[in-house]
């Protein structure tokens, strides 16, 4: 009964490929997020959805496209993968957009070769 789950846990792929990461939360939260953590552990928000509506869209290349089919799911699709996309991607959720407490998934470790 994991609160925030992500699949896959590890993803190794070649440059130029297209890949997706899935996230699901069973907490009944309204708001979900994607974060990127680089090799120096720096964590930065990429996107946020509230009830399937995009509310935060940081300066992220157009190759990254989030999709929220319902408020329990927020998927991240990445086109034309580049070496610099290698990172750990975390999904998170919060009760609502006030963000007082966020619950994080275990992360997806993406390695682009």
């Amino acid at each position, binding site marked *: 009964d994991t609160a925030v789950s992500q699949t896959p846990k590890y993803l190794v792929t070649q440059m130029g490929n297209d890949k997706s990461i899935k996230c699901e939360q069973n907490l009944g939260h309204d708001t979900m997020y994607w974060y990127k953590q680089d090799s*120096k552990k*720096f964590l*930065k928000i990429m996107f946020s959805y509230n009830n399937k509506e995009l509310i*935060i869209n940081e300066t992220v290349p157009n190759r990254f496209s989030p999709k929220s089919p319902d408020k329990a799911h927020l998927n991240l699709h990445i086109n034309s993968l580049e070496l610099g996309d290698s990172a750990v991607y975390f999904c998170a959720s919060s009760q609502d*957009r006030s*963000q*007082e407490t966020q619950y*994080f*998934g*275990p992360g997806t470790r993406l390695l682009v070769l």
Partner: protein
Amino acid sequence: AQSVTQLDSHVSVSEGTPVLLRCNYSSSYSPSLFWYVQHPNKGLQLLLKYTSAATLVKGINGFEAEFKKSETSFHLTKPSAHMSDAAEYFCVVKTGFQKLVFGTGTRLLVSP
């Protein structure tokens, strides 16, 4: 713009000794501040949060932090370190745009 600075990239302590992880914030108004912990190969977990109530905030696992406006600090402390406390700790501020801004992290190493 709101930001946080974690003053130490690594802190090493012996088991049973006190822990001090330092964080300074920059904010044009009263901020909401958080400490998150990340154990190896795990997601982040909220330790504690300050949202303009009591300045001394108690969190999980015996951690606490004190908000000091005069020093613009929000340092994390624990009286006695345990081996299981070894992890990466992030100081976080919530911006006016409803975003969380993370510090660069402090790795806590605990030796027996």
